[in-house]
């Protein structure tokens, strides 16, 4: 048998809370905010008032992709480019290709325990908010 570190709802909700609190200082767009575990399964989600159906799915998929690939989406895009891979080569229809706003959630030892995804603002703003979310927890 072996032990694994599991992200819990208290961490996931703290990440979402921090992003929601910071959002008005960064964008006036309504955001979708998602946190998934190391399998890409949803742990916490919030759709701010007026947020879109598209944003809801996009945020979850960004978090999912970052978690499953154990990579921030920015680095995933760079890796795909370096390896000349198409997104369909990964065989996972839930992946997003080259968006930003999806970050892997790592413990202090560097173990990926999940992913955070933000959608609704610009790519840079989405990523900035995801970073703010990660800073809210100490893992």
């Amino acid at each position, binding site marked *: 048998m072996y032990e694994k570190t*599991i*992200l*819990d*709802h208290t961490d*996931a*909700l703290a990440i979402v809370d921090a992003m*929601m609190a910071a959002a008005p200082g960064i964008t006036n767009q309504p955001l979708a905010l998602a946190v998934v*575990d190391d*399998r890409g*399964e*949803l*742990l*916490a*989600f*919030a*759709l*701010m*008032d007026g947020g879109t*159906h598209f944003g*809801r799915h996009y945020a979850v998929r960004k978090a999912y992709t970052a978690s499953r690939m154990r990579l921030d989406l920015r680095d995933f895009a760079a890796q795909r480019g370096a390896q000349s891979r198409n997104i369909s080569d990964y065989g996972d229809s839930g992946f997003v290709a080259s968006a930003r706003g999806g970050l892997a959630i790592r413990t202090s030892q560097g173990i990926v325990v999940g992913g955070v995804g933000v959608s609704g603002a610009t790519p840079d703003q989405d990523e900035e908010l995801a970073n703010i979310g990660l800073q809210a927890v100490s893992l």
Partner: protein
Amino acid sequence: MHSRAYLGIKEAMAAVKAIMAEADRVPGRPIATTVLDHRGDMVCFASMGEVNTALARQNAFKKAYTAACMRVNVRDMAARAVAQGIGSVANYGNPNFTGGAGGLVVMHPSGETIMGGIGVSGRSNEEDEELALIGLAALQQAWAS
């Protein structure tokens, strides 16, 4: 053209946090919960890390979805299927419908407009419904404040 009230994140998050806080009082029995709007779209969700994916995450959604779309507390869903001559919940042909208690309708304070549904899954249906009721009370309190 028309306008209508939509369920917002403030009240949805209040419900989810109240449910998770209550569930945290009994460790080791993880749950998932979600609040959907009247179209069955997710507004807020939280799940404990150790919850069973196939059961709780999906069933929390299905309970909330059934309540929001069919305007029924899910405990009464099976009886409605019989009363409508449909026979069983499965006969509606919607794979997201369920008959397990733990899904509650969220009505507008006027009592006339459907606003969405709350779903809880992970424990017995009765316990899930008790948690959902705590969430509904928190949601209504958030509206009132």
